[in-house]
């Protein structure tokens, strides 16, 4: 019987070997994946095991932590003015996970990041609890508050960028939400959370980064840039445009709003009065391929990470009449508020586009800097000369065109209004847009802004970028300029 016995011995050994191989597989090979599975409660337990590091704006924390009672979580996230800062911070909830900065820099905020290894070791040796590091943002509290307050109960978003560095100064999205309201894991938190999810106004949608809108007439700045760069047009040359303009391959006539001198208007005049006819014709003459090319130089057709992911703004391939309409931002091209702020900023910075960012520094608990963002140039999207021509056009708009409400005393403001149609046959309230920048007397451009206001409850005739969106942009620019003075 000994021969089969030996085989049974081998068989039993193989059973044990199978167990060892399997445990190696799940504990070693798959270990990291299982450990970091966001559904694994250990991730949240770890996250709230010590006071979380803070997100800092202008030297002050907009977040906090407070001790809680409970078996799993020792601390809970708190927010100061949560509604104002939610589009920046995102949320960190015991029950519902974390997003945006709270999620991206979770390692720093909890103190788990490998770069905090030194601090962890010291804490371990001295027997202290692990501490989290801080995330310092580029935001300007005054700009953010001004934008949020001016938006009031309107639905929309506003993004402010420092054109010279790309630093994001304001990131407003309304209606907003208070992330403190569901930071815990009680049934009350769940109720709040579910309420927010069900809210038709989608308060948790970050409209500034994640929502794309038809850019409307603000896109004419991009079309004008393409026109100048192509060498086929100049700022004060007549454009040989009929009014109304018949769209190519179509029997549809495109007209203009109001009674303005759009026929045969130069780029400057066309920008001043937002002439649809002129820019549709330019877009058609440049053709779909070139328009895509110039749009992409401004950042269309790619995702941006600031470091929070922003949705991709698009300028797609399309047929001739649609491409002509896209030249006035009224076809299949769509843009995020961030994207349009980048357009305004690039023009204001003499054609140089700076990479937008909102993380300035990551700071270890011992105050040493772990990571710092240095402004990065994304490239020259238009030549300096053409950028200045675009500035002249946009400044004309504010000086004596559709953008008059954005004027600020003693400061040169360039801007562009937009009113994007929305819905089948334009039956829904349009989107009101305004993009602008401010230039101080010493020639510096501290801020560029893009504002979009969705279907506010006002008469549709009233809706125009200048009436709804321009005041928000103005308030944010003023806040930035006040800070400089």
């Amino acid at each position, binding site marked *: *019987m*000994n*021969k*089969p*016995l*030996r*085989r*049974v*011995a081998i*068989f*039993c*050994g193989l*059973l*044990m070997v*199978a*167990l*060892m191989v*399997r*445990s*190696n597989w*799940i*504990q*070693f090979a*798959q*270990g*990291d*994946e*299982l*450990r970091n*599975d966001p*559904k*694994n*409660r*250990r991730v949240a*337990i770890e996250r709230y095991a010590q006071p979380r590091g803070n997100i800092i704006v202008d030297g002050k924390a907009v977040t906090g932590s407070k001790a809680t009672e409970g*078996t*799993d979580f020792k601390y809970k996230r708190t927010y100061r003015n949560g509604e104002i800062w939610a589009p920046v911070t995102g949320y960190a909830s015991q029950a519902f996970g974390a997003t945006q900065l709270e999620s991206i820099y979770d390692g720093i905020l909890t103190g788990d990041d490998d770069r905090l290894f030194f601090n962890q070791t010291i804490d371990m040796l001295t027997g202290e609890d692990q501490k989290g590091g801080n995330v310092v943002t580029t935001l300007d509290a005054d700009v953010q508050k001004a934008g949020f307050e001016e938006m009031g109960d309107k639905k929309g978003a506003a993004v402010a960028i420092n054109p010279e560095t790309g630093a994001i100064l304001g990131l407003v999205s309304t209606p907003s939400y208070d992330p403190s309201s569901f930071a815990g894991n009680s049934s009350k938190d769940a109720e709040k959370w579910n309420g927010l999810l069900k809210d038709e106004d989608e308060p948790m949608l970050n409209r500034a980064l994640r929502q794309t809108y038809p850019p409307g007439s603000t896109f004419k700045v991009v079309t004008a840039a393409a026109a100048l760069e192509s060498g086929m047009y100049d700022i004060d040359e007549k454009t040989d445009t009929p009014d109304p303009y018949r769209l190519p391959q179509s029997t549809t006539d495109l007209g203009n709003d109001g009674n303005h001198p759009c026929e045969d208007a130069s780029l400057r005049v066309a920008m001043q009065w937002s002439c649809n006819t002129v820019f549709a014709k330019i877009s058609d003459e440049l053709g779909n391929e070139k328009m895509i090319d110039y749009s992409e130089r401004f950042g269309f057709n790619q995702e941006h990470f600031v470091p929070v992911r922003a949705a991709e703004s698009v300028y797609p391939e399309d047929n001739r009449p649609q491409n002509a309409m896209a030249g006035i931002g009224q076809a299949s091209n769509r843009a995020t508020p961030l994207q349009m702020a980048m357009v305004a900023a690039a023009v204001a910075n003499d054609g140089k586009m700076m990479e937008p960012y909102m993380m300035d520094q990551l700071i270890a608990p011992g105050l040493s800097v772990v990571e710092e963002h240095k402004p990065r140039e994304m490239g020259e999207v238009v030549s300096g000369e053409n950028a200045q021509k675009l500035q002249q056009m946009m400044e004309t708009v504010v000086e004596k065109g559709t953008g008059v409400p954005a004027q600020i005393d003693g400061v040169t403001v360039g801007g562009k209004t937009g009113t994007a149609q929305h819905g089948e046959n334009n039956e829904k309230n349009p989107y009101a847009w305004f993009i602008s920048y401010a230039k101080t007397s010493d020639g510096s451009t501290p801020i560029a802004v893009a504002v979009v206001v969705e279907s506010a409850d006002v008469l549709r005739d009233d809706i125009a970028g200048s009436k709804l969106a321009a005041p928000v942009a103005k308030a944010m620019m003023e806040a930035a300029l006040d800070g400089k003075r």
Partner: protein
Amino acid sequence: MSTSQATGTTGSNTTISPGGLPSRRNTELAMLVFAVLIPVFAYANVGLAINGEMPAGMLGYGLGLGLMAGVAHLVVRRFAPYADPLMLPIATLLNGLGLVLIWRLDQSERLVDPPGAPNQLMWSALGIALFLAVLVFLKDHRILQRYTYISMVVALVLLILPMFFPAVNGAKIWISIGGMSIQPGEFAKIIIAVFFAGYLMVKRDALALASRRFLGLYLPRGRDLGPILAIWALSVLILVFETDLGTSLLFFGLFVVMLYVATERTSWILFGLTLALVGAVAVASFEPHVQSRVQDWLDPFHVVRETGNANQPAQAMWAFGAGGILGTGLGQGNSDLIMFAAKSDYIFATVAEELGLTGVMAFVLLYGLLVERGIRTALAARDPFGKLLAVGLSAAFAIQVFVVAGGVMALIPLTGMTMPFLAQGGSSVIANWALVAILLKISDTARRPAPAPAPSPDVEMTQVVRS
């Protein structure tokens, strides 16, 4: 002391008795010291990690475990002096660590069930008492052979009884008498091994030789198929009526292994595997309980994805992952998130999380070592009944470990069985101590020097020359 002449320390064959082996009792004693000290340190570790102080019961626990191990050792020295030296220390170590793990889970704030460690300590003491009783009263394992058919009846009764008791958590594996719950399957495991050993010893020739050759395989005769078909039917019935995949698998596997050893015919294995496969697939096709287990095995996270709530299989996987290579350290993991059955069926997940891959490997090696010592005993045994019984008990132990641990780590579908010696549960720990006692008794008989022939001057002379 009766063993003094046999305690060879050099390891070579220096005993005076003819063909004798060193008894290895001192080796056993030395390892027992470690087997007691390691759980005591583990106990201290848990206390320091959770409460920041040495646990109050530490001295009592250490002394208790030490005392039980010491008594067991002395009884082995007296009643089974040539027994295998590894089994008692391994069983003590596993039982000791099991107690620590249960006590650790008792400290959990998440688990609401009553503390399990004090009861488990009592069951362990009872288990060791039974261990001692077997060693003292079972003079020779061959006595068990007389009870072959009685064993069959008892085993059948034990296996069928739970059908008449209400299901606990989906499986009918319990019988309750006067408020006490017993898992008869654990005891049936031993008794049925006795029956198989006795039965196969008698029938092995018929089963092995009376067969037709077909396609290079020896096919059993139709009428010899009776017993295997009966056991197969019983296993399937257990699976269907008691929804107990583990017990069913264990008995069928045990029988096939013993049949193979008895007949040396590979065809029996193929035949057994085919039957097992047919039975499993057939039952799985209509039994929702088995289906859901299979689904959890194929994708442990499907419930998490579908409902957002983590179930036990997912929690167990996370516990294994969280452990990583070195583990979080005793008392510092979150394996209690498994909640229900964390101390029993899923206790291996706590090993995985808090002791890491290292701990899992160590435990699997300990189990493997115990099993291989058992099979070594079978090889050394001089009588076919002893060989069959030893291999049966060892294989049952191995299959049980594989089925439970494999189920917890989603290597195979999960079945409701207990990790021998580790998991909470009185029946399991008592039965496994008895199992080890029988193996020890067989190994003692196997390694005991053959009784010297009547003393004669010639032999004396020879010995003098040899020494």
